[in-house]
């Protein structure tokens, strides 16, 4: 009896072990492959055109498709449109759509969807904060709203060709960069027949049907969104099953990457490794790190309407800023000094423009000659939240103190900073911009009628040069105007530009085929990422 029991045990135990092994192996192979991407702020809406924030773009980019995407070198790459052409007069652009594109419910994406999307977003009754992007097209007003129902000049030519007509001849690259790269196409068959009130309600957008590489699954507001791979994606199925978009404070990004909680960060202003953490990130065996030049910039604002802030005084302040310390010591070489808003990474950068020399002695002399009120305490507004910018302000304050100028730093949140600078209570301010390849990007900052004209310029000398250049239709004819613009910016010194910083990227070594260099152009191409073990 005992022997039989022993035999039975000898038989049962290996079989049980085998079953457990096979079971766990099966469970292993069934485990979904998940990639987690982190960014520092949450999306504010699920309506792709009803936002001015870039954070939503990471979400929309997975669920929907844009016509075109931008690459780091300024060139454009196909997305929903497989090709595009501009007519000889540069008055219209025609996109040819990829015939393989389908909505998540299986229906084909056609030119009629593109027309419907343009019409929907140009309807002023529909909430669309980014409607202004449509203002290039005939049939819209300056805000991009249609002049009459369906008046926006967009026409389907068959199922896969769609033509947009401009108000006037225009450099088409500007339109593609400013509009097509952020134009997420929505399904006509889902939204057709809905009233503006229904469209404006968040419920219609809550469980979106898109055509992108991932399908919406669920979200925890302000914390994460979970998406599942669209295995039928027309540009290729993602190499993994689920994508999780996480919101994390910037200080936690590196620890998340090191622990494996996060696989990759969104890059650029949406989530990069801090300068303090960069050496640590580079030492991590499980991470790939890349320092990527960008078009962003930080600039000092000078209130030109203060009676003592004459052009010579502004030039003196401009030459008193020790940009070498800012770039070499503060940024540890992960950036480039700037004299204008156009970064050396831009094709419009003026190579002939000389650097503004650091000369505190001459600067102090100019201030004396201009009878600068040294006894006055100048107010310097600094927005909170960007530690590098806050440290920059401290160094600039020291540079100005060396001239004998008293400066009081006031750290405030960004909306307060904007309000205070709009009301002109400042002497100095410091702000940043993500920059774009459009050399006219800084126009809003120098236009006397703009709400972000923080240096309070009253002259149109800069906007005149920009507008003249922007009206030209080729790069070669535009470049001389933007060269002149950069020279004038340095001369006026209303906004001494400081530096551009590299985007400090890091991602897990389990990922490959990641083109992190394009992230700051809001182009992630997640479906191309390969996932190892």
């Amino acid at each position, binding site marked *: 009896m005992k022997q039989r029991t022993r035999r039975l045990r000898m038989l049962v135990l290996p079989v049980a072990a085998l079953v457990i092994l096979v079971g766990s192996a099966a469970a292993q192979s069934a485990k979904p492959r998940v990639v987690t991407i982190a960014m520092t702020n949450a999306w504010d809406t699920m309506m792709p055109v009803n936002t001015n924030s870039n954070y939503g773009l990471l979400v929309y980019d997975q669920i929907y498709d844009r016509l075109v995407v931008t690459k780091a070198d300024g060139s454009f790459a196909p997305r929903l449109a497989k090709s595009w052409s501009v007519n000889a007069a540069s008055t219209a652009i025609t996109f040819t759509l990829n015939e393989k594109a389908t909505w998540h419910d299986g229906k084909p994406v056609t030119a009629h969807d593109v027309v419907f999307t343009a019409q929907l977003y140009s309807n002023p009754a529909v909430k669309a904060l980014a409607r202004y992007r449509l203002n290039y097209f005939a049939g819209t007003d300056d805000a991009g709203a249609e002049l009459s129902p369906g008046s926006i000049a967009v026409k389907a030519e068959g199922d896969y060709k769609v033509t947009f007509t401009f108000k006037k001849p225009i450099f088409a690259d500007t339109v593609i960069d400013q509009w097509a790269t952020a134009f997420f196409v929505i399904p006509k068959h889902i939204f057709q027949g809905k009233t503006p009130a229904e469209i404006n309600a968040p419920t219609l957008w809550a469980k979106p049907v898109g055509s992108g590489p991932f399908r919406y699954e669920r979200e925890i507001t302000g914390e994460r969104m979970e998406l599942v791979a669209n295995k039928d994606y027309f540009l290729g199925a993602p190499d993994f099953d689920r994508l999780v978009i996480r919101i994390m404070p910037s*200080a936690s990004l*590196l*620890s998340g990457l*090191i622990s494996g909680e996060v696989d990759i960060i969104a890059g650029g202003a949406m989530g990069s490794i*801090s300068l*303090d*953490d960069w*050496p*640590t990130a580079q030492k991590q065996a499980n991470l790939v790190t890349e320092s990527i030049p960008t078009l962003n910039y930080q600039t000092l604002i000078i209130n030109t309407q203060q009676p003592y802030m004459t052009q010579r005084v502004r030039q003196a302040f401009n030459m008193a800023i*020790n940009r070498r*310390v800012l770039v070499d*010591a*503060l940024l*540890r070489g992960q950036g480039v000094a700037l004299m204008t808003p156009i970064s050396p990474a831009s094709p419009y950068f003026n190579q002939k423009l000389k650097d503004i020399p650091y000369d505190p002695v001459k600067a102090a002399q100019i201030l004396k000659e201009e009878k600068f009120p040294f006894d006055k305490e100048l107010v310097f507004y*600094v927005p*909170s939240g960007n*530690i590098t910018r*806050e*440290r920059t*302000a*401290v*160094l600039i*304050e*020291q540079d100005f103190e060396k001239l004998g100028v008293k400066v*009081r*730093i*006031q*750290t*405030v*949140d960004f909306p*307060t900073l904007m309000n205070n600078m709009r009301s002109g209570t400042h002497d100095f301010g410091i702000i940043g911009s993500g920059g774009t390849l459009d050399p006219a990007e800084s126009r809003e900052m120098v236009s006397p009628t703009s709400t972000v004209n923080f240096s309070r310029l009253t002259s149109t000398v800069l906007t005149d040069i920009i507008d003249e250049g922007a009206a030209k239709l080729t790069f070669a004819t535009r470049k001389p105007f933007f060269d002149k613009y950069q020279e004038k910016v340095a001369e006026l010194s209303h906004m001494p530009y400081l530096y551009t910083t590299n985007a400090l990227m890091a991602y897990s070594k389990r990922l490959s085929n990641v083109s992190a260099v394009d992230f700051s152009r809001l182009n992630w191409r997640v479906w191309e990422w390969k996932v190892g073990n």
Partner: protein
Amino acid sequence: MPRSGVLKKTNPKSSYFADAREKFKEHRLAVFGLAVLTALVVIVVFAPMLFPLDPYTSDYFEFGTAPSAKHPLGTDAVGRDLLARLIYGGRTSLFVGLTSTLISLLIGVPLGLTAGYYRGWWETLVMRLADIFMSFPAMVLILVLVAVVGPSIWSVTVVIGILGWTQFARLVFANVLSVREKEYVESAYAIGTKDFTVLTKYILPNSIAPILISMTFRTAQAILMESSLSFLGMGVQPPMASWGNLMNEALSITVLSQKPWIWAPPGIALVLIVLSINFVGDGVRDALDPKMRI
């Protein structure tokens, strides 16, 4: 800790405060706290006068460096000497702690005193106001108020001071309720002494002990609040140093794990000063408590 179970003889001719001083001396932690507190105060007040400390100027060749002979506690991310900033940061903490407590005292004591003395609608008004103030989460309210008026050393001090009045008002109010029933107070009424004289000459002196004790704890609380606000970027403004904004650098995992010389000294200083003040407060409480006297 005080050996409250041991009965000790006291000199019948000695004064109340002489007895209290003797009692305080027996409280070892309180004496230790007082010694540490005195040392810290002497350092932060007198060191800048004796040594050439510059907490504001960057050393362009020493950004974020480790401790060295030139910079004994290293430098911060913009090359400023951390020892100098630690000492000047201590001045900020002490200034905010003491000044805001004084503000709380100046508001809370008269309100508590008059509410307990006059009672009636004034008591209801003052005490319900105190309840309303205390029902808000203090830190959140301070953050909002500082954001509205703009962060600065003065705004932080005044806001912390104003929000601390309830502690003193309730304490004094409770004390007045018992003192006003004493025979000597009733005698003062009987001979026609004016209210102001009764309040200041007979009632207030009998509330001094709990006020003193409360002041020490409130000072420690205010120092912690200022440090928390500065840590969150809503406290004193750059380039001014504060122990809170010195510790703000530890938000980076690199600084936290590899550069303890940046955040440990202000952290230790903060713990030491708060503990010392609390120990002194304990000692004062035990020394002035008549129930612990024989």
